[in-house]
């Protein structure tokens, strides 16, 4: 037969942003760790191998941080001038960095001094990247040239001078060792192939390009410049797929989540926006204190590291529910639970399914047994009435529907009554609950008017409630006055137009010539 139907708890639409699984995911980070650097943090790069240290380029230094270290594990400070773009090789053993003096330096992560120096650029090198075969190094410079270097011999293999402005970003394909992409202030993004002597694809971004990013599959390219983030389809020869304008200042950095499902962009407007890579809609947004210059995600999204113009490095680590595992009681063994579950029914067996047990809330269990006073007690417990007043109100409404609200409210001592009254004081003016709680308040006054004067605590609360209701009535009166004024204004407007004017929601005032009543036959 039909089972017990649990009490209906009204759900109210929440104001503000909707809670989605993305907001839950991206909010599940600990409070940030802030580290002060020597200058604006221009680049952050994670080592691709465990323990996932990351190189932070700021001012004339590159600092290597460990996962939870507040202090740098290692510092490369052998730069004469500002260092740029400290990047790990994909085996995590070598680190390359450009510099204001035009020299590209190669460091051993374990060592201290530079292993090799690649000179040839005449101006500052702001982009360096290793190719996926580990033997070559790409660099882009403010002298408008892109160069490809042989790592061991320090010889320059190629020099492309197609860009007509500073080259400020670039990346290499991790599928093809010969392919790399650069973005420049000349508003273009160019794809180069080391086997050809000129660019393969050129894409017009429209703004100075601040950052480029290749998807792991190599099929899609993301470029950021100005307020725009643009996604290009490489397989269609660089066709624009989508253009996103969700920032209101220049977008400076891009980053993909480890699964490739979400794209992150940081901007000078101090926001990090997270997009879904299937629909390119913003699913979440993170706020920071200063303009963001660099952004990186640790593998498995374990940490979000953001570098800002105020030379602060902001690190947020992912929360893990460690407590739950500790608390786990030693229950029956796994074998006990699995017993008989893996039995495959043979043909002709009669299957008897186990009835599904519905879990009922405490108040529902009590209501099911018609223990109304206890049910009301259950929803007046501190955590229920404070965190979820809609549950308390819902149960009160249900009690009223059953015609037993008076019984449930009666027979309470001073402490319980004061709990009830404090709940009323807190919620009676909430428009969601007013209709129910006014009735509750009336019943309480009816029942307990005889005991007024016996307890100073309760008397005080009654006075407070009275005060609150008087204020609310005054407030409502004022609101009605305003409404009346607005009505007059609307009415004058419609008479001028002499036509039907329809308000969007609440006001549809009809004036205008009325048809003559039909003649009665």
């Amino acid at each position, binding site marked *: *037969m*039909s*089972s*017990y*139907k*649990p*009490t*209906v708890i*009204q759900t109210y639409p929440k104001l503000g942003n*909707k809670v*989605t*699984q993305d907001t839950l995911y991206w909010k599940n980070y600990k409070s940030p760790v802030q580290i002060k650097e020597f200058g604006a943090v221009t680049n952050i790069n994670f080592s691709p191998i465990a323990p996932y240290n990351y190189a932070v380029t700021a001012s004339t230094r590159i600092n290597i941080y460990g996962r939870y270290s507040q202090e740098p594990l290692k510092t490369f400070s052998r730069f004469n001038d500002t260092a740029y773009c400290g990047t790990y090789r994909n085996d995590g053993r070598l680190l390359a960095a450009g510099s204001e003096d035009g020299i590209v330096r190669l460091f051993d992560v374990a060592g201290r001094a530079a292993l090799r120096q690649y000179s040839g650029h005449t101006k500052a090198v702001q982009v360096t990247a290793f190719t996926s075969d580990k033997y070559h190094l790409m660099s882009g410079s403010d002298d408008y040239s892109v160069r490809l270097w042989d790592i061991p011999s320090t010889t320059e293999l190629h020099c492309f001078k197609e860009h007509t402005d500073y080259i400020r970003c670039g990346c290499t394909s991790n599928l093809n060792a010969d392919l790399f992409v650069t973005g420049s202030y000349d508003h273009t993004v160019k794809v180069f192939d080391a086997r050809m002597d000129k660019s393969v694809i050129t894409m017009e971004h429209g703004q100075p390009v601040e950052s480029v990013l290749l998807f792991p599959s190599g099929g899609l390219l993301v470029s950021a410049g100005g307020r725009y983030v643009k996604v290009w389809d490489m397989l269609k020869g660089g066709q624009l797929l989508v253009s996103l304008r969700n920032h209101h200042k220049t977008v400076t950095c891009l980053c993909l989540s480890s699964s490739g499902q979400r794209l992150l962009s940081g901007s000078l407007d101090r926001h990090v926006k997270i997009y*879904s890579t*299937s*629909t390119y*809609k913003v*699913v979440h947004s993170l706020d920071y204190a200063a303009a963001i210059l660099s952004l990186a995600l640790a593998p498995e999204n374990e940490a979000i590291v953001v570098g800002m113009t105020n030379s602060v490095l902001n690190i947020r680590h992912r929360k893990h529910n460690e407590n739950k595992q500790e608390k786990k009681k030693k229950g029956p063994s796994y074998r006990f639970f699995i017993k008989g579950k893996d039995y495959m029914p043979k043909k002709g067996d009669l299957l008897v399914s186990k009835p599904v047990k519905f879990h009922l809330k405490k108040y529902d269990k009590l*209501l099911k047994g018609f223990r109304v006073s206890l049910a009301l007690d259950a929803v007046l417990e501190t955590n229920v009435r404070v965190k979820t007043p809609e549950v308390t109100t819902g149960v009160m*409404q*249900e009690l*009223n*529907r*059953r*015609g037993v609200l008076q019984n449930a409210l009666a027979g309470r001592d001073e402490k319980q009554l004061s709990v009830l009254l404090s709940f009323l004081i807190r919620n009676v003016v909430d428009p969601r609950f007013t*209709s*129910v709680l006014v*009735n509750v308040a*009336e019943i309480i006054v009816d029942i307990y008017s005889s005991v007024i004067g016996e307890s100073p605590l309760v008397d005080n609360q009654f006075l407070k409630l009275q005060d609150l209701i008087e204020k609310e009535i005054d407030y409502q009166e004022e609101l009605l006055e305003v409404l009346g004024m607005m009505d007059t204004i609307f009415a004058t407007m419609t008479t001028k137009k002499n036509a*039907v004017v*329809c*308000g969007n*929601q*609440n*006001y*549809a*005032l*009809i004036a*205008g010539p*009325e*048809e003559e*009543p*039909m*003649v*009665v*036959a």
Partner: protein
Amino acid sequence: MVEQTARDDVRVIRTGGSKINYRRPLFSTDNRYLLCASGDFVKVYSTATEECVRVLQGHKNLVTGIQLNPRNHLQLYSTSLDGTIRLWDFTDGILMKTFVVDFKLLALYTSAADEKSIFAIVPKDNNEISGNFQLVSINLPKSTDQEVAVKDVTVVLDDVHQSPKSIAFGREGQFVASVKSLELCVLFFKRRKYYRFPLSSKDRKGANNVFTCVACHPKEDCVATGHKDGKIRLWRNISNKQEYTYSTQHWHHNVVNDLIFSAEGTSLLSGGVESVLVQWQYKSETKKNFLPRLGGAIEHIATSPDGFLHCTSHSDNKIITIQSNLTVSAIIQGLVKGQEVLTGLMLDPRSKALVLNGKPGHLQFYSLQSDKQLYNLDIVQKEYIHQSSELNQTQVVKAAFDCQGTWLVTVEERKDETTDLEQQMKLWAYNEEQQSFALNTMINAPHESHISALCFQNLTGSRSGPATLVTAGLDCQFKVWILGDDSDIYRKCVCWSCDFVGTYHHLQATNCSFSEDGSLLAVSFEQIITLWDPDTWDLKCTFCHPPGKIQDLAFGRLSCSKYLLGTTDNGFLCCWNLLSCSLEWSTRLNVKVLQVDPLSENVAAFTEFSQVTDLFVFKPNEPRPLYMQKNVCSGLVQWALFVPREFPEDYNSDGKQWLARSQLYFLSASQNLMTFSTESVEERLTSSSKHLVIEENIPMTPLHVLLGKHREQQTNFVSEAKQTALPEGSATIDEMLHTPAHVLPNASFLCSMFVNSLMISKMGTSAKEEEVEEMDSEKEEDESDTEITLVEDEQETKEAYSAEELLPKLTKSEQKELKKLRKIDFSWIATL
């Protein structure tokens, strides 16, 4: 003014089944069938499939009691208010004998001790108004005649209660216990000892000792009684006037409606308004088992003779069969009555089911074709508290379907004196996978006051745009709700939101209606009808017929779509022309219900004049009504609905033309669902549906499967051979098949007769080839069909309007006429 076009052949017939909870149901000995009295019929249900297998038709008034024949468990006695006891073979559905008693029989009992006679409750001196009733023993004479008059009636107990639950027969029929008001009486047959056990009438601590029901233990001398205040008393040692004892059990908080001992006497079952079946262990009554939330209040409880099954019948026209371990095994649900029908009658465009208020907080979907409930849709989704003093619970007050049946809108309300109106509007989307409606949008307090009307916009092919719903409220507003897209990257979904709010001179909006093509919305504000353009929501024009307030509003259909019909509360029916914006005609008719046929131009109007309801069917563009019937039913008509037919019927006369494509159903004030039909159609429909049901209900045994295959092969063979068809309904064949084998004459004699019969009847009859191989069974049914429908016709032509209880008794002359009719061969009807 109007021509009398009513023909005798368009008649009002009752549909939607009858109450199946009127009397205690009965199990057959093998547990395969459940028998219950239902109106003038006895219905035989299969306990396995819940289908109605057979309907025993023959009584001419309400059936009041059914009992198995103690000497033959395949036979059934039934009593009725028409003063007859009939003996049936319920497995084959044959009436075997009729005993004419000439008393209004109110209940029937059989006793194991006295197999020759049966017991019944009759009013004293056959005068029901006197309020005195007697338990009588009726000695059934042995006779071979079909119809026997019974004279041997002896009074057993005087002054008994008329309810059948107030009398019970004890162990092996040795004694009979009867309760009335505050007294328990026990009569021992053998010793002729008569004991009375009175209870005090003191109303102490809310105690109310009035007896409501009685049951006797099957093995011991123990009597259980139920009381008004929910107490159950177990009386022992009742053969002693002084030293009797009783123990009291109190669980029910309200009146005990019925109680019964299990077949072995190990437990006692009781039930009441709480709709909880309580199983008490006999001799250790503190141990109880419960089966809660069964639906409506429990009216009767019955157990099967072997104790495997129990069944409870409920106030919401339902019988539940329950296994002995208190698990529900089957539910037989009729059309739920008793609740006020606030939603009106609607048609689900998908399932073509009739939709109306069902169980509290539910909508019921009722199939008119198969005459059974399809399912209940829980709208309110709140726990229903069963209490005798009516609680003010949430009710479904309005509902509407859109034209494709993809959306259902419901409005539920709850109002009590102290709190504000609780109102919710719910929009349900049809889910193809689950074949049911799923909640899509819930709107709290859509209007500040009651919603008076709502309707969906018909979206025809030429119109595009989102689905639109209009609600009119008594808060002087009408609101337009449209279906919008609410999907994001995580899910795809749609939801409804308010698009426009319209008012007119601060008058209450009472009705709303869209034109057939959805291009015009009419909303009535008290006296004034306003017309709005659904594209811009501009007010186009207004109509009124002062001083009457508009009660009902409808647009014409098809070629009459330029007309708008309105009824006023001062008794006018008006028709406005929308092209000229003028009143086309108006007439003085106090129309209560106005209903438009969706498939034709016809409009049906039920008018009320001094408690008599008449029906007018007219086209808005024609001055004369197509059809008129006076005195459709006693009392007012609440709601009406045109239901499109599956296949159009052929009617050549003008008076019946309006029935060709749709059928008009209406709900009377006494909540009887009625329809207009003609004899021939009705007959054909009943016979065809009956065949289907019976064939479907043959249980699938391995032998059946084997035989079925064999049969099929045979069928193929027969049809290949193109055997010429045999005619049906020949008197000879009937005679041959119905005469018991031992009285049949020689086969050679029969043979020539049979062949002769074939030769004669072949000329006039059309044959059905496919039924040849099942000739014998078919014949039987045909015969019984014709007879039954005849009886039914007789009865309905006379008594169709009156409520079941008020059926007048047939006079002797009428009965004689009936007997004559039965002797005449009516088999030719089957071939029409």
